[in-house]
Each structure stands twice: as structure tokens, then as C-alpha cells.
């Protein structure tokens, strides 16, 4: 199987996020960057499929700055074969432009399967899988928790989460699937794996090499980041457990009107 995984480097989920004084972005100093948590499931699944189907190849693709090479190395260290960094530029906030770049690269890979996380842990867009699928004319299924490749029919049996429970679907390959937590238990990179990953070459591409008029593609603009109105600490109730509970219920009913 030829598999591509779309990955993104994002701030550690435990990081405090500060906005630059001009509100144009976040303060990057002091932030530890990681592979987006949902992408870990996608990468792990791709590597497991590769291990199952002989002759498979897994390519990890990201759009990002120079430092995004770190997450590509993480992918290589757990068994991904090839890594591609498409350098970002000004309009990389625009999801449409980014999807165009990714799809352009993916087209050239002659794929059976594209995996990605259900959303990136920074912009929480949940866009790239569906958008790439449209551009490639592949079907797309989000929130996938189980994948069974049916080699003989060229299809896959999928379990995915919905509000009421789960759906079991059959999809024709090639397709795009977005990974939900629960798909698998990602492995940690081994030391030899990390050593090997260091030596592997990362393919680097400039947006203009893929799409000459890239700069004119943007469909949205990020105007600014702004702080979330702070939530202040409220009231700590006092008294015996009985008194506190009685007061709480009274407040919820009469003041907050939520029960």
C-alpha cells in the first residue's frame, strides 16, 4: 500500500499560549513543539498497515516552518519511510491554500490511503482531511477508530464515532480517513529509530514550486488573535456539607437559573 500521513507541528498541549503585542500570532519563545496528538494516531496506524502489507510505503507530509522538521524526524523514527516539508509562507493561516499545497503533493504520490488527525491541536480547524479528499476526488471519513483493509476488494471497513455511538462503514480505496483517539496506542520512538531518522533526508519544497500563483489563493485572512475574556474565580461556599449543598442548589436555581 502507498500511504500518506498529513502531520502538523503544534505547541505542547500543556503550553500557556501568549499573544504577541500586535495580536498577529502567538509568542513562540519558550514553547515546546510536538507532533499534534491526533496525528500520532494517524502515523501509528500508517506504520501498522505498512508492517501488515509487505511492500508498503509511508510518506509523512507537513506544511510548516523549518522547525517542523522535528516532527517529521519523529515520524521517521517510528517507521515512516519518507518525509516531505512544504515550507509555509504568509498565507499559511488560510486553510484553503494549505490544502491546495498538500493535495498537489499528494497527487504525485499515487496513493491508496491518506491518513490525518481529526484536527490539529493548534488551530482546531478539522479541515485538511475533507478538503484534501475533495481535491483528490477521494471519499472522506472523519473520527475513525478502527480500520480494516480488505485487500481483495480494494475497500476498507471502518468504524467511526458519531454522537449516538458508532457507525460501521465500507469505503472504496483510495480514501482519506481522519483519526480519532482510540484508533490505536501510538508507540514511542526507539533509540535506534531516532538515530536512523537523523540520517534520513527530508524532501523540502517551496509553495511556488507546487503552485506558481500560490500567494493569490487565499480565501480567508486571519485578522488577529485576541485573548479570551478571563473567567474569574467565583465563590467558595462555606458551612457544613448539608448547608453548602443546600445553598449551591438554591444559587443554581434562583441566581444562575441553570436547573
Amino acid at each position, binding site marked *: 500500500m502507498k500511504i500518506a500521513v498529513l502531520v502538523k507541528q503544534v*505547541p505542547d*498541549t500543556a503550553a*500557556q499560549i501568549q*499573544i504577541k503585542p500586535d495580536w498577529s500570532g*502567538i509568542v513562540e519563545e519558550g514553547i515546546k513543539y510536538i507532533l499534534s*496528538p*491526533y496525528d500520532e494516531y494517524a502515523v501509528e496506524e500508517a506504520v501498522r498497515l505498512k508492517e501488515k502489507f509487505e511492500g508498503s510505503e509511508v510518506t509523512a507530509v507537513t506544511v510548516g516552518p523549518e522547525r517542523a522538521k522535528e516532527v517529521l524526524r519523529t515520524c521517521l523514527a517510528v517507521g515512516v519511510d519518507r518525509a516531505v516539508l512544504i515550507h509555509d509562507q504568509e498565507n499559511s*493561516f488560510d*486553510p*484553503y491554500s494549505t490544502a491546495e499545497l498538500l493535495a498537489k503533493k499528494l497527487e504525485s504520490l499515487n496513493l491508496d490511503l491518506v491518513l490525518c488527525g481529526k*484536527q490539529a*491541536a*493548534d*488551530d*482546531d*480547524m*478539522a*479541515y*485538511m482531511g*475533507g*478538503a*484534501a479528499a*475533495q481535491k483528490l476526488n477521494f*471519499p472522506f471519513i*472523519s*473520527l475513525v477508530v478502527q480500520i480494516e483493509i480488505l485487500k481483495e476488494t480494494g475497500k476498507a471497513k471502518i468504524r467511526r*464515532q*458519531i*454522537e449516538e*455511538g*458508532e*457507525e*460501521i*462503514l465500507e469505503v*472504496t480505496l483510495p*480514501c482519506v480517513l481522519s483519526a480519532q*483517539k482510540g484508533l490505536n496506542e501510538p508507540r514511542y520512538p526507539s533509540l535506534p529509530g531516532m538515530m536512523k531518522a537523523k540520517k534520513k533526508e527530508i524532501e523540502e519544497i517551496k509553495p511556488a514550486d507546487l503552485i506558481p500563483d500560490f500567494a493569490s489563493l*487565499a*480565501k*480567508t*485572512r*486571519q*485578522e488577529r*488573535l*485576541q*485573548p*479570551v475574556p478571563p*473567567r474569574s*474565580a*467565583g*465563590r*467558595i*461556599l462555606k458551612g457544613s*456539607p448539608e448547608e453548602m*449543598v*443546600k445553598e449551591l*442548589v438554591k444559587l*443554581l436555581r434562583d441566581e*444562575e437559573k*441553570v436547573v
Partner: protein
Amino acid sequence: MILLLAEKKEGKFLRLTQELLSEARRINDSLKEEIAVLFVGFQAAQEDVVQLGEWGADKIINPVHPLLEKYDSENYVQLFHEIASMNSISIILLGSTVYGKELAGMISAKLKGGYAGDCVRLFYEKGKISALRPVYSGKVHAVVSAVSGPFTASFRANMCKVEGPIPGKRAEVVPFDFHPINNGKIKILEVVKSQDQLADLSEARIIISGGRGLKGPENFRLLEELAKVTGGAVGASRMVVDSGWIEHQHQVGQTGKTVSPDLYIACGISGAIQHLAGMSSAKCIVAINNDPEAPIFKIATYGIVGDLFVILPLLIKEMRQVFSGKAVV
């Protein structure tokens, strides 16, 4: 045209459909366009027409086709494509449901337009359609604006004020001749309904959430009881999900769900930044924890420092009185 997708569950419109219409009405004070609701699959009944009209729809686009009766992403995208080729659309609004989020990205890519996921507000600013959306799991807000093409946004539940109905307003029902693509690349084989009735956090108005302070999986029954009494759902911290105490469906926070209920009761949850990110837009937060230094108290509307095994049974008893004789919605 502002186009929005109506979604039903068990025969009733989601509250989110009414919220989308309210948001559409507010931004339409500036845009002054037509508000159209896409009602898919079945013939709209008279009560649907009345309801959507009074909520603010000018028009109901009502394609009826066997292939549209059930959710089918390929045909739904095709449907939006056909509608867009015959109308000038400025905004497409979908609810941030599983289907809504899945569709939103595909539709906007297909229509070569702008996209913003999981928005909490739409507005018109400096002549541009703009959206406010939480990023970094709600630690920061971003404002994005439309540059060109139809602007497709998915909209988070329970975030906006619902406008009152417009008495007597009627929407015009427009049949739509849909041409399905019918290539059958995706087939739904089976829907497995969760036995767990308390797991659907998406539109829950009350969430009772538990963390490590519960000491063990068996003690979730206290939360389940309180949720049943109040008509709420049960949430959980990442720690207890990763420990296997409860299914991932229940997880609130980064790598779980982002929720904004009217009432969030955090029991034995210390309040890691990833958890706070997922629930701090709740209207009212109650924290019950025996550690007075727990970060959750910094954002809680009301805090009780104490033993949750003493507090919760008392709370269940009190809530039972409040909710007895009151229809649970």
C-alpha cells in the same frame, strides 16, 4: 443568500438549527440577504415550515430524494455544489456536529471558498464577513474574515443567544431537483447505538464530570445518578479515560470534547490546562474538590471544598427535589 443546513434528531430539530438561524439573522442585519434553510431528504411537514419560518428562514430549499434520506457525505456535498451553482451564496452555516464538521471542510473546498471551523460568533466588520473561533483548544480566540468565495463555517452548540420567534413569519418552500452522483464510494453498513445514554455531550445542558478524585471507576455511578436526575450527561478528565475508568466518548478537554453546557459540575477534577480549555466556556461551573489549591477553583463560579463522597449524595438528594415534578428537557 445565507444558506444553512437544518439537522434533526429523533424527529425534532436540533437546538443548534435554531441557534444557526439566530446567528444568521444577526449578521443579516448588515448583509440584508435572503436566509435559506436546506431541509434535506424528506418533504418538509407543515410544522417544520412554520417552525423554520418563525425562527427566521425566508426560504426552505427542500430536495427530496431517496439518496438524501440518510447522511451521505458525497451526495450532500454535491447538493451544496448544485445549490451554489444556481444561487449567489455569501455564507454557508452548519452545526459543529459530526456530520456538520465533516461536511463543512469538504463543501468549502468544493466551492473554492473560505472556511472557519467551530465558530462561536459571526459578525460583519469593516465590510467583511468575519468569524470568532477558539483556537489552541480555547486558550485564545482568532478572528478570521472572508476574502473570496462563499464562506463556510461550522458553528459550535450552545454558544449564541437564541432570538425569539417572529410570529406569523412564513418561509417559502422551494422544491429542488437534485442529481445524485450515486457512485457509492461510502456505504453505511451499520449504526451501533451506544448503550451508554449519558455519553452524548454535544448538546447536553448539564454535564457532571469526574476526575481522579473519584478514586476508582465504580464511583462514576454517583455521577451517573446525578446526571440521570438532572437530565445531564457524564464527562471525564483525560486522566481517568487513559486509566480505562470510562470510555473516551466522555472525555472533556484537549484530545476530548469541547463543551459549553449551562452547568458543568467538576467532581474531583483538579483542572489541568487541557481540561480547562475544553469546558471553560460553560455558563456556570461548579467545582467539588478536597484540595482548596486545585486550579479548577480559579475558574469555578461556585466551589465546594470537601469530600465528594459526602457532597455528591447530598447533591443528588437536593437535585432530585428540584427536578421532581419538572419535565426534564
